[in-house]
């Protein structure tokens, strides 16, 4: 039996949106430390964090039908919202959201079924690394 | 006879060997058309555009080497608006409802509306400053602030819409008569109309107050309209007009409900024929699918109730409001058909063409592109009969039209589509072909000697739809109904000179901070924001 199966997985509903930190972060420049810290993060309900057996700032992998991405864990200040995770808009969130617009022009960016799992082996990519990896350009 | 044109004006004569000559023999030559009331630009019009993609889809303008693309039908995009007016031989259009707070928007759109000269009327009838100053009887203070507002918004005339209504609509209410007090302000529509009429005189504005009456669109409202005209009778001086009742058709309903609704045109015409302080425009209805939009919020909500169509409402803080509802006028509906009849009855029963002007209150009664059809009705009994045959039986029974034989001749037509408007607006260089006038001309390919408008109304309609030539400020801009040269067109506004120019007082700033959510310094529109600004200076009496 494989290590992966020992790892707890959490089925959640993924929300993306604006945060004040992301707002101020982007004002420091899209390639700044602050921006990276403010958007490469997965905000979770404290109980979910415990359930997953990780701590704040640990590394997790969030996966949807459309891809998966490595993020830093943060306990969300405002809870409870068990089973709901929040990732601020940005290059990280965009890698795993649903492009389907259902003929409206608007992709599906909120309330997406997703899976969170600890990824001790994973490492947070810097923005340029992330972009090169996924877009083979730049 | 010859008409000589030199750098944008009509002159005595020019050197024919050097001049470009247009042979207009066998054609009708008129001054460029002037529209006194047509919603062509601003937040309200644009909200209507946004609301109706289905209206645009069926009527598009393709880009050419010299013209921009766009869409119609009832609320054309800005470029298309300019082109279509120009093709009909119109060179001046008045944009009648400008929310002061959003005036910057109106002027941005006018900058993108080519081919025609234009101006806008700021909505001042429910502005808190006006309500408070008039309530306290401070006419001169009121006038000073109106002067400031005209300059700040680059406005041309005082527009009053359902006085007191928009303020009451702030909490979902309305005023029911011209003596119905406005909640929280203890002032009546009568006070507002009389007050602003006095202000208008103090400021020597070129146009009178421009009034959309209370109770518009309600059966029985012709009474309100008569009262509104009467209430400023004593304020008229040396037989000059003191009030303009706009799109009068919508304010000339008799009857106690929709079932008994009839025409009140006769009574209104009788009054207007015996008084000289009033001018009107028709607000003619044409049977088509159009979009209604006014600053009369409560009326538009009622219209939503009647039709169940999609409804837009937009309240503007401390100033006014607006509403929009798509609307289809059907000849089978007795109400719609009666409305159609009322507009023409007014135009035909009012003897003096200098007192009533041709409008459809674009787009409320119909898109302005229907003017040629309205002209053909004014000029031909046969054309009118043809429609009467096909309208609702009830409306036909009540219509006065079958007994009206009057047919406009070309002179009367020229008056109700240009000369009269220009006079009412105080635009001295427009509406005529005298020496010194703006060289704005329309040449229509119809020979008055050979064509009998009464029978050949089809020819008339075609001719007025596609001008043979439109000349704007001395340049040929339209030939055979097609744009041959795009021009910008100017924007007029009144620059009111007070004996003691009003300095923004601490009180004004204080009120500003309280009344609006924008900074005082960001409110006025700098003149350079207008691409072709033409201030008209007037000396106020204060």
């Amino acid at each position, binding site marked *: 039996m494989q290590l992966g199966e020992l790892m707890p997985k959490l089925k959640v509903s993924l929300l993306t949106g604006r945060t004040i930190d992301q707002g101020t972060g982007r004002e420091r420049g899209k390639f700044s430390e602050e921006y990276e810290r403010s958007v490469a993060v997965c905000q979770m309900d404290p109980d979910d964090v415990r359930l997953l057996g990780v701590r704040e700032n640990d590394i997790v992998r969030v996966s949807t039908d459309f891809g998966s991405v490595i993020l830093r864990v943060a306990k969300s200040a405002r809870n409870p919202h068990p089973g709901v995770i929040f990732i601020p808009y940005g290059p990280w969130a965009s890698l795993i959201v649903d492009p389907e617009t259902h003929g409206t*022009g608007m992709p599906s960016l909120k309330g997406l079924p997703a899976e969170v799992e600890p990824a001790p082996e994973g490492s947070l990519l810097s923005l340029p690394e992330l972009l090169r990896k996924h877009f083979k350009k730049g | 006879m010859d008409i000589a044109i030199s750098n944008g004006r009509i002159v005595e004569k020019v050197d024919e060997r050097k001049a470009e000559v247009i042979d207009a023999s066998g054609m009708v030559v008129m001054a460029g058309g002037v529209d006194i009331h047509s919603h062509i630009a601003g937040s309200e019009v644009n909200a209507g555009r946004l609301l109706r993609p289905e209206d645009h889809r069926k009527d598009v303008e393709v880009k050419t080497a010299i013209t921009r693309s766009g869409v119609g039908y009832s609320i054309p*995009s800005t470029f298309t608006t300019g082109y279509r007016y120009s093709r009909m031989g119109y060179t001046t259009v008045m944009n009648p409802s400008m929310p002061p707070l959003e005036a910057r928007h109106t002027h941005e759109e006018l900058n993108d509306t080519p081919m025609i000269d234009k101006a806008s009327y700021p909505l001042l009838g429910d502005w808190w400053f006006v309500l408070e100053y008039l309530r306290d009887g401070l006419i001169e203070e009121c006038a000073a602030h109106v002067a400031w507002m005209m300059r700040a918004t680059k406005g041309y005339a005082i527009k009053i819409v359902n006085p007191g209504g928009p303020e009451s609509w702030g909490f979902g209410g309305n005023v029911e008569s011209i003596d119905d007090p406005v909640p*929280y302000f203890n002032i009546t529509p009568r006070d507002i109309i009389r007050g602003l009429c006095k202000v208008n005189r103090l400021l020597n504005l070129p146009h009178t107050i421009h009034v959309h009456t209370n109770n518009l669109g309600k059966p029985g409202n012709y009474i309100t309209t008569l009262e509104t005209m009467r209430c400023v009778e004593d304020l008229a001086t040396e037989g000059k007009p003191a009030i303009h009742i706009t799109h009068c058709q919508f304010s000339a309903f008799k009857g106690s409900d929709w079932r008994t609704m009839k025409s009140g045109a006769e009574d209104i015409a009788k009054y207007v024929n015996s008084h000289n302080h009033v001018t009107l425009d028709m607000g003619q209805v044409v049977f088509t699918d159009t979009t209604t939009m006014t600053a009369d919020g409560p009326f538009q909500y009622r219209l939503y109730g009647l039709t169940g169509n999609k409804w837009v409402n937009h309240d503007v803080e401390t100033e006014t409001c607006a509403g929009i509802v798509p609307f289809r006028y059907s000849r089978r509906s007795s109400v719609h058909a009666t409305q159609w009849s009322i507009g023409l009855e007014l135009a035909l029963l009012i003897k003096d063409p200098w007192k009533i002007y041709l409008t459809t209150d674009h787009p409320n009664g119909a898109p302005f592109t229907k003017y040629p059809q309205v002209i053909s009705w004014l000029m031909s009994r046969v054309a009118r009969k043809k429609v009467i045959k096909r309208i609702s039986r009830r409306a036909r029974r009540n219509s006065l039209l079958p007994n009206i034989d009057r047919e406009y001749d070309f002179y009367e037509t020229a008056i109700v589509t240009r000369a009269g408007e220009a006079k009412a607006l105080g635009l001295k260089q427009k509406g005529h072909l005298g020496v010194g006038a703006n060289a704005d001309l329309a040449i229509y390919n119809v020979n008055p000697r050979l064509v009998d408008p009464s029978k050949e109304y089809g020819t008339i309609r075609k001719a007025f739809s596609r001008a043979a030539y439109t000349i704007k400020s001395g340049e040929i801009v339209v030939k055979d109904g097609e744009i041959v040269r795009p021009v910008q067109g100017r924007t007029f506004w009144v620059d009111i000179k007070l004996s003691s120019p009003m300095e923004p007082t601490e009180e004004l700033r204080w009120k500003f901070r309280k009344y609006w959510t924008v900074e005082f310094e960001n409110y006025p529109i700098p003149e350079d924001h207008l691409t072709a600004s033409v201030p008209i200076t007037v000396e106020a009496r204060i």
Partner: protein
Amino acid sequence: MPAVSHVPCPVCGDFCDDIEVTVEDNVVTDVKNACAVGAARFLNFAGHRQMKPLIRKNGELVEVSLDEAIRRSAEILADAAYPILYGWSSTSCEATRVGLELAEEVGGVIDNTSTICHGPSILSIQDIGISSCTLGQLRHRADLVFYWGSNPWSAHPRHIERYTMFSEGRFRQSAWEKYLSSLGGILTRKRLQRAVNLLLGRRLSSPPEVEQGLPYTMFQKKRKMVVVDVRRTRTAEAADYFLQVKPNNDYELLQALRMLIRDEELDVDEVAGVPVELLEEVADVMIGCELGILFFGLGLTMSEGKHRNIDAALSLVRDLNQYTKFLIMPMRGHFNVTGANVVFTWQTGYPFAVDFSRGFPRYNPGETSVIDILCREESDAALVIASDPVAHFPKTAAQSLVRSPLIVIDPEPTPTSFMADVVIPSAFVGIEAEGTAYRMDHVPLPLKKIVEPAKTCLSDVEILQRILHEVRKMRGGP
């Protein structure tokens, strides 16, 4: 030192125009009245800039002259059979006007960022209509404020203070002290402290206001606030009612409310995780108010149902006008996304997703909207201005975007410019360049120029005009 006052803040849809900025030899040294994000914009905009035009040559972005960058851009657009011109929400209306002319000239598809924020709201406005207003109307009159799927405290930090709960108007009192007293417990007080800092911890200007005792205010009841969201947001904590809706169930909740305000029975005891009793109470509050306003955000436009969620919200508000005065307003994100819609609409008749490929404007989101075009791999070139689609579009769309030639006009480096083939640095509109922009409630305000841009950074307007001119030259036009 020269302080520029009444500066509109070119960041969010609130577009506050009371900012005071201190400039010392062309550098912003101090900002007053702005929120955290606004202050950051004014203080940091100069820090991270791309100063020289770039063109990608064998895989690498290399510095080139502006003329070369303009010429290359023009070539790319002129050669394209189906180019995209995207962005427009963080630049001036003047720039958008030129952009539309350029799109028409090259027969492209022009779209603005509302396509991924309030596009769905616009779609349903076109089906239902909307009962709305300017923000001052609410400051003066609103006694019931809904925030549905929007969190102003994070996205529009000064909204509550300037326009709703904590503002004071002719008929309404500020709800400040009620808010203070309504909170108990150390934890909440801590949170409150953070909230207060966020609101008032800013450096404030404006001298104490001189009361003139004018017959002005006629206070009536205070305001109530209702928050509907999937998370207990910071805004939710200040609310009189908080409805925590199950993710993707807003539509059911809204439709149920439409029945409840008509006093009709539901066959169910719970809707979207909210007990019907509570909904009935809220429905009564809605009918009972004098003027209600429902602000909605991306929580509604992006979750399942998209424009149909807005259908329900717009219809609910429309229905409520039978009983009282009720208004609704989308919380727009970028400071000029409303302006982009406005200019698009007056020039083409349509607010976004406009296709000029056949020489006249056509509009059909889902067909002519940029995400769909990219996902179908239909475009063969793109110009992106003042926007960062690579960071904010779903992966497949972004990949398709960078696959064909990409022109980026932006004052600062972004993930999108990082992927571009031509990069043209521009002046920061509203700081280094003037213009016009529209607040979320359609109130137009001037954008101000408070510092001189670098010689190499032209305004968006100039850059676009030069590209347009170049395109026309290539086509032998005037």
